[in-house]
């Protein structure tokens, strides 16, 4: 996978002194224990990968190490001396910085303002914007982010925001840098750039804690691997001793079956969804496409190619006009989420925190929000049905929780994704558009989601999958459309669907997402 990223594996001595040592760390939220007795040491100049299933407690452990949460038990030592961080700032002062799995930036501030928040540079009494912008531009360039230092963060695409977060961690010299799923929102080029950065950090003697569900990255990068399962530590191994399959099995605690289901036979049918000359954001994005029942249509392209915008436009979530939209032969005049859903088309957003889930609501309200009218024919809300649907979903989608009264925001990232998927499926759609289906999903659950999509399509439904993860796109799709700069650049079918072809089509006329016209 991620071909470009994987070169010869650099095996390194991992006997440096521990810069940070956790002893018997545990964490509970009220009666719920999410982490028990984790002992771990992190050495200077190593890349230490933490892997585990969704909800295993990886992010929680990282929050403890970086002062974002206080442990319920256990101790931490730096260079032999016991430390306790009362907040993230203390940890940062001690040289430990965490890049969150979720985006944590102030949307109203500029990139540079976010990067330097809390430690602004100043001259006399005034902040020195020039210098901060200059330094921001430098780090942004280093992580391969094309955003400008003065762009408002709230206006940036998710991937760019992720890079900004990483850039923030690189601004000062650190002893320990923790990256919690930094690549989940990135596509190939950015991932490569990031891996290079991690390697150079290691070369400078920085300890990097690295969390990823992309095991190929772990294999390519890590010196040691620690596996967590159900909040417990399974063990730490030199990365050289494990291959991807072994890692996966250690995480899941059982043998894994095939990742991708076998491809289906091509079907002959009228398209389930037909979109003619859709024009989004005043023509910045245009395209015609259709998908048949029993087909998975993959949409590839680089970040910023306009895939998300195209689908949001189709659903009436941003200004758009279409020549024609037909669902199962029926013409839809003015598409919006409601009418599209009634016609059988649903869209699963890539921004699960901002646009997908009500983070401070429980599972039930989130689950049934979209399909309220279908689940409840009258005006009344049937809470029994809601509860039943919630229980059903927790089981069917294997959402790992310890109490049904948990809030969506308290779920681990991967479990949030599953809840979101379950939410759009409540509407019982015939066409499902999924933007980044497995963002932040562990390997065991990935195959589960793939199987889920396969079942769906075999049951005669149609599926559009937008994915920046090439193996996924290739492994799932019956047909792939590749977008470049707001237009469809290529259509691949059958054996033409390969990672190389997608990459080539996505980038062929140069790396020019910048040239894209915006209104």
């Amino acid at each position, binding site marked *: 996978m991620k071909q470009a990223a994987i070169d010869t594996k650099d095996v390194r001595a991992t006997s440096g002194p521990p810069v940070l040592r956790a002893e018997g760390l545990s964490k509970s939220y009220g009666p719920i224990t999410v982490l028990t007795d984790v002992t771990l040491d992190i050495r200077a100049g190593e890349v230490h990968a933490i892997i585990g299933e969704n909800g295993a407690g990886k992010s929680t452990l990282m929050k403890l190490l970086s002062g974002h949460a206080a442990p319920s038990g256990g101790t931490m030592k730096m260079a032999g001396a016991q430390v306790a961080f009362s907040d993230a700032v203390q940890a940062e002062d001690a040289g430990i910085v965490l890049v969150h799995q979720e985006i944590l930036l102030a949307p109203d501030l500029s990139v540079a303002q976010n990067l330097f928040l809390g430690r602004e540079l100043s001259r006399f009494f005034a902040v020195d914007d020039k210098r901060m912008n200059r330094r921001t531009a430098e780090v942004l360039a280093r992580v391969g982010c094309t955003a400008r230092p003065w762009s408002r963060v709230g206006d940036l695409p998710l991937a760019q925001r992720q890079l900004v977060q990483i850039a923030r961690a690189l601004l000062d010299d650190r002893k320990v840098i923790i990256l919690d799923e930094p690549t989940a929102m990135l596509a190939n080029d950015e991932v490569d750039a990031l891996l290079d950065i991690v390697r150079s950090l290691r070369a400078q003697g920085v300890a990097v804690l690295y969390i990823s569900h992309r095991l190929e990255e772990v294999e390519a990068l890590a010196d040691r691997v620690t596996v967590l399962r159900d909040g417990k530590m399974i063990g730490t191994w030199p990365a050289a001793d494990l291959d991807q399959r072994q890692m996966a099995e250690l995480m899941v605690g059982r043998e894994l079956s095939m990742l991708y289901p076998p491809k289906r036979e091509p079907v002959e049918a009228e398209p389930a969804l037909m979109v003619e000359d859709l024009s989004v954001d005043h023509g910045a994005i245009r395209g015609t496409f259709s998908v048949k029942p029993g087909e998975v249509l993959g949409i590839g392209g680089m970040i910023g190619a306009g895939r998300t915008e195209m689908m949001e436009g189709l659903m009436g979530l941003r200004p758009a006009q279409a020549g024609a939209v037909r669902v199962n032969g029926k013409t839809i005049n003015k598409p919006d989420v409601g009418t599209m859903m009634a016609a059988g088309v649903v869209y699963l957003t890539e921004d699960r925190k901002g646009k997908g889930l009500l983070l401070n609501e429980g599972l039930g309200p989130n689950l049934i*929000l979209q399909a309220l009218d279908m689940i409840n024919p009258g005006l009344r809300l049937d809470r029994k049905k809601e509860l039943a649907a919630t229980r059903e979903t927790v089981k069917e989608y294997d959402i790992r929780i310890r109490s049904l009264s948990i809030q969506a925001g308290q779920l681990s990232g991967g479990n949030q994704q599953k809840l979101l998927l379950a939410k759009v499926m409540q509407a019982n759609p015939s066409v499902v558009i999924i933007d980044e289906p497995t963002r932040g999903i562990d390997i065991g659950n990935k195959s589960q989601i793939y199987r889920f999509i396969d079942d769906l399509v075999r049951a005669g439904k149609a599926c559009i999958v937008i994915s920046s993860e090439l193996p996924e796109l290739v492994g799932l799709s019956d047909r792939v459309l590749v977008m470049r700069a707001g237009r469809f650049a290529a259509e691949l079918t059958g054996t033409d669907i390969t990672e190389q072809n997608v990459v080539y089509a996505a980038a062929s006329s140069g790396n020019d997402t910048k040239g894209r016209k915006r209104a």
Partner: protein
Amino acid sequence: MSSAEIASLPESEGFKIRWGDLAPFIALGVIILLGTMINSNFMSANNLLNVITRSAFIAIIGVGATFVIATGGLDLSIGSMLAFVVGIMIMAMNALAPALGPWAIPAGAVVALVVGSLCGLLNGLIVTVGRIEPFIVTLGTMGIFRALITYMTDGGSLSIDRSLRSAYRPLYFGDFLGVPYPVIITLVIALLGAFILYRTKYGRRVTAVGSNSDVARFSGVHVGGVRTMAFVIQGFCVAVAAICYVPRLGAATPTTGQLWELQVITAVVIGGTLLRGGKAHIWGTVAGALILEVIANVMVLSDMVSEYLVAAVQGAIIIIAMLAHRFTSSR
């Protein structure tokens, strides 16, 4: 996780009553206790009935305000809107009285409900279609309604026809099995509000919109519609309060309902509804209205503060009550 484990997960329902949600009721209890200690007359049936009956207005309007605030809105026009609706209702009743006799009262009430809902609709449409901050919109309509009632009363007062007065009076002063009608009406409105908020699809959408309007939009919720409807509910509740209000003094004046908006919003917030939206407590609002009314009552009954300082003590008590319930209920 095995399915056996899932089945054994605790029921979510039984879990819903949280300590924090009880805070306004506890605060109410404490203030009542205080009142009892300060003046022995406080606990007299008569005094309690007076206070509870009086709180009906703020409570009824508060139910509507809970909807608006839960969607992330705010309505500053409610006090003036009340005055305007009262004015229109009295004019309608007076005009209909010669023809309909006492039936002019229900007819006027219907007029009030329609006018109130329309006023709410106006607010809602300007906010959603015009996409202007509710604060500004309702500050504007506050001025408009207030000016209209001043105009309608010529700056003086507009009283209900004598012939209707005695037939209408019992709606405020009468009771059913000892429970004053305004209290019954408050209960009905609060029950209805709670039903809509907690037991209907619309209620779900209200909290969804208030909690994250983008998520709601992406889930196919018609955000503008939900918001507008909340303002309409608010207008309807104002009209119900107006219907209970007229039999009490029988007149509209330019000062009718002045500054009630602040009282209503305070009641809603004391009740545990978040001003930024997404969380709504109908019964908390009712408790909040009672708290305000009881504090005012206790202030008059107690002999301790100079008349100049009543407002200060009242303000301080509200802050202290909030502080107390913050520090008792915070984990």
